[in-house]
């Protein structure tokens, strides 16, 4: 649906692209860090949206793949590997990890899968806190800057470009997956696995591929995160992080590529604004955490109850309702 809409009207897409490219040049450093985290969140959320909206699977452990990506890049870079290798390895290792645990876990569905993925993240964090090569609870310190050969990314603006290039790749890959034959098969299996299987959709294989793909997106974001922040520790990847991605995906509208980005942007900016309010002079010390927890929760509950298709489809919904539901059906 989104793919079709974008092809018919390239102008809004181009405008968004131009603004995205122009922003790093005008933002100051603190605004840039928000911009970078927004992009990283968007990358993971596109994966969550694909997994939940198209394959119908709930993952409460997306933070685990983010962590795998971050640790992969971090470990390689700390041991003197070229940063490019680290950044390329991050999504690959995350995807392989997802594919390996996905073989047993994706036999589960619904709430069982949700808890299984949550458990995976808890196990992973606990292991990372104890093992020698992940740096234990302190984590990995002093990850070198990202660079290609002699050229090193020093300032925040270049990380912003790197991040949003990643977002573009992720969105492009997702759009092509959605518009392809497997994409339609995924939509079918989200509705009923039995019906999809009897129409010849290889249900198990497709679910595994989407799971691995969403993990790769999270892994890529984790890799960029490790280079940008310079350290990773178990505390960088709390369970709440995985819940945040769910909130962003649900708010934006499940199964919409642009919606995921809109959701990530809306939540990140909202929490940032509240952070400013919460740390204003005269506010109690607990204000920032109370405000952000409350907002995550209220937004999630209100959207699930009253805008079940998400923010973006609710805004553009009237137009979408008049169009045939499946824009890619002719292929």
């Amino acid at each position: 649906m989104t793919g079709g809409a974008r092809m018919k009207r390239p102008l809004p897409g181009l405008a968004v692209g131009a603004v995205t490219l122009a922003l790093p040049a005008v933002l100051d450093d603190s605004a840039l860090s928000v911009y970078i985290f927004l992009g990283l969140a968007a990358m993971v959320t596109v994966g969550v949206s694909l997994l939940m909206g198209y394959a119908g699977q709930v993952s409460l452990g997306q933070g685990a793949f983010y962590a795998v990506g971050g640790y992969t890049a971090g470990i390689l870079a700390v041991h003197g590997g070229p940063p490019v290798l680290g950044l390329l390895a991050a999504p690959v290792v995350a995807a392989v990890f997802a594919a390996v645990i996905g073989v047993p876990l994706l036999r589960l569905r619904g709430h069982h899968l949700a808890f299984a993925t949550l458990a995976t993240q808890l196990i992973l964090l606990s292991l990372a806190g104890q093992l020698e090569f992940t740096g234990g609870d302190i984590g990995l310190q002093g990850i070198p800057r990202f660079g290609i050969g002699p050229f090193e990314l020093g300032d925040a603006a270049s990380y912003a470009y790197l991040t949003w290039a990643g977002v573009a790749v992720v969105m492009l890959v997702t759009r092509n997956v959605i518009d392809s034959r497997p994409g339609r098969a995924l939509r079918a299996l989200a509705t009923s696995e039995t019906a999809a299987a009897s129409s010849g959709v290889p249900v198990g294989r497709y679910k595994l591929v989407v799971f691995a793909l969403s993990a790769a997106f999270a892994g890529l974001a984790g890799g960029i995160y490790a280079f940008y922040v310079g350290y990773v520790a178990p505390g960088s990847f709390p369970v709440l992080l995985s819940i945040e991605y769910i909130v962003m995906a649900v708010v934006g509208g499940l199964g919409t590529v642009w919606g995921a980005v809109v959701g990530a942007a809306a939540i990140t900016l909202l929490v940032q604004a509240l952070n400013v309010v919460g740390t204003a002079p005269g506010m109690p010390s607990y204000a920032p955490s109370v405000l952000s927890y409350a907002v995550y929760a209220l937004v999630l509950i209100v959207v699930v109850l009253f805008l079940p298709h998400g923010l973006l489809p609710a805004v553009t919904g009237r137009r979408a309702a008049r169009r045939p539901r499946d824009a890619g059906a002719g292929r």
Partner: protein
Amino acid sequence: MRELLTYLVNGLAVGCGFALIASGLVAVHRVTGVVNFAQGMFAVVAGLSASWLLGAGLPHGVSEVAAVLIATATGLLTGLLAIGKRGTTPQSSLIITLGVGVLAYAVEIFVWGDQPRSFPGLPGSLTLAGVGIQWQHLLVVATTVVTFLLLTAFFGRTYLGKAFSACASNPYAARVIGIDVTKMGLLAFALGGLLGGVAGVLVTPLRPVSFDTDVTLIVNGFAAAVFGALTRPGLALVGALLLGVAESLAAGYGYAAYQTELALGLMLIIMVVQSARRATVLEEAV
């Protein structure tokens, strides 16, 4: 040998705490088909309230009962949000209970701060065959046994309990014979709050709770509940006791750091084995 017994008793007490959480999950899931992620939060709310009320000068007993009532009310409110609106699917409800759990973080930090709280339980211990057993541990075990007996009687013998089971097995048929399915669901959430609250006031003296303890509690409770396929309280009790004893033994014999991995790994294996025995068609039909 004496050590082994001590670890066993510890493990049984901790396992009973998990069992109470699991029984709350089972009660809600049986009636509504919803897995209530906020179940661990009920225990946290009860534990924090009890310590707060005791600190405010209320006597033991009164504080604990009041805390359990607060948890029950929290359960009812959670239910209103999760299933109050018509047409909410169980998967949406799960996500809403997730939201309620996070909302509770905000309220808990606002009211009680973000530091762990505890309060003294029953003092002293009983020496049996050379092994010291804390009275609090015995209290936990005894309360759990009584609670499970009452639950079994409730589901098997009372009209309300049977109406609960009817909603679980076929909501449409239950509605046809005049059972208000939504009201039953709300009552089930209140019951879940009550059970979670009982778990909270019993466990808090053994292990201090803070606002984010709920993740540990819910994951262990869920692990126990899947042992009984989320519908059978008896099997959930067995699962919880096994889990508690296994964790306590692991901690006792020097693998304390790997408690989480052990418990969660066990849960994953059980779930995957169970799913292999169920057909997809049957699951989607429900």
